[in-house]
């Protein structure tokens, strides 16, 4: 279905319609809702997958201004439509999920953060002299690509440790999927939050854990 965030129209895919706690899925950088495959099929409730602005079947932002807080705003527009929901995000979608879970803690009983493209951003502090990517000089050609090239500015935005930690502490519950690979500083800061828990699992098992955690945190009247 089409939903709006500011001037942008987004595609929110309803993957499963049934009773129970909804799940909202947020894809990684240059990905789309199609990336989730069959993994959410076992979720015991409605499942929604969002295409972020500039991705999949959603509008591109005219003028190319993309930043993580705007993607979290895309996800918040989905929440406005769905109501309270557990959120799972990969890569830049994991960072957006953290921002959303910290700001909308009453609406997001639990969030699952997964690795993926756009996870690190531009690091924990500005890299002066490298903030301005070459490709911002390239004229855009709408229609020749599925993904707006300008979303790659999300590989350069600064993600400070204390900023992430503030959101991680304000959230209800956060699950971090670990696989032995190194994680960016904002993720490590999130891990230190008292409401965070690291897990090692495949995606279907991680979603089962997310449901169990979220279910404990929400009452029947929440959804």
């Amino acid at each position: 279905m089409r939903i709006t965030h500011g001037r942008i129209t987004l595609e929110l895919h309803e993957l499963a319609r049934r009773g129970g706690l909804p799940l909202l899925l947020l894809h990684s950088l240059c990905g789309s809702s199609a990336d989730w495959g069959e993994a959410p099929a076992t979720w015991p409730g409605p499942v929604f997958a969002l295409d972020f602005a500039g991705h999949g079947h959603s509008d591109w932002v005219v003028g190319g201004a993309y930043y993580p807080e705007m993607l979290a705003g895309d996800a918040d527009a989905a929440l406005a439509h769905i109501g309270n929901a557990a959120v799972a995000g990969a890569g830049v979608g994991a960072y957006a999920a953290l921002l959303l879970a910290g700001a909308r803690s009453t609406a997001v009983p639990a969030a699952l953060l997964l690795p993926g493209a756009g996870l690190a951003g531009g690091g924990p502090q500005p890299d002066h002299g490298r903030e301005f990517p070459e490709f911002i000089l390239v004229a855009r050609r709408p229609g020749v690509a599925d993904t707006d090239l300008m979303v790659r500015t999300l590989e350069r935005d600064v993600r400070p440790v204390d900023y992430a930690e503030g959101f991680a502490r304000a959230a209800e519950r956060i699950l971090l999927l670990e696989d032995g690979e190194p994680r960016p500083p904002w993720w490590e800061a999130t891990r230190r939050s008292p409401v965070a828990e690291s897990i090692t699992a495949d995606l279907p098992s991680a979603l089962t854990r997310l449901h169990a955690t979220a279910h404990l945190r929400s009452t029947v009247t929440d959804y």
Partner: protein
Amino acid sequence: MDLRNVVYVTEPSYPGALEPERRAVIESLGVRLNLLEWGDPHASPVVLTHGMWDHARSYAVFAPLLAAHFRVIAIDARGHGDSAWAGGYSWLVDVGDVINVLRWVGRPSHLVGHSKGGGQATDAARAVPELVAKLVNIDGFGPPSLDDPRPVPVRFAEFLERQRTQRHSWRPYRSLDELVERRRAQNPRLSPEWLRYLAFHAARQDHDGWRWKADPIMAQGFGPWRPEWIGPSYGTLRVPMLAITGSEPDTWGPLPEAILAERLRHVARLERRTIPGAGHFVHIERPRETARLVLDFLRS
């Protein structure tokens, strides 16, 4: 609508404010930018960037004074003046626009920016030093501090709420006079004629009243940026900077001297000048004195 009640206002004049000699429209990152030009098209170029809620015409007195020696190109920033509105806004793409104008000019230019435009001109000079000869920053050194003590997630929740309810267009004002009064609140030292000129070019007359041309969603934005990053960023500036400030306390400045000096100490090749009696809008309040300082700096 009843057109009998519409009073059409003709363009106000102001002594020294000259019509642009040329106009150009270029596309930058998918957005149409309006450029105004004064002076010999073959002379060395100077590119001007205005501040938040302002427009290229705010340089209408200042630019012609430079045009005796230079080709002067004033940008209407995206979302301002006669440039197009975007789907959303960020500092990074604004800087991209300045860089794209410099590339369109095609030879090293001097760069002059005021307030937000001064900060973005400085960032453009850091990003593409090969396209910038000298930089003039007019009171564009950032805010003193972020003074909202509430936790970031609480402020972000407020931002998200505003995103859900934000209006995307202006309600009309009944007359140009109302816009003039709003501008006067920001620029208490300007004459009524100059205020009227600036307000006229910041707005358009519709059948139901006057609306600002500037995009109301532009003030939105949220991020981890902090003022302590400004000074160290100046450490990567390779072109000479003339830093101009006024002396008078104003809505937007000047910065406390200790904070300003701390930031500017990172600039390798710095000249500083203060124009006594001027507030934040130095080139609008004192266009002739400002132009004299800028010409001395650019021609030395």
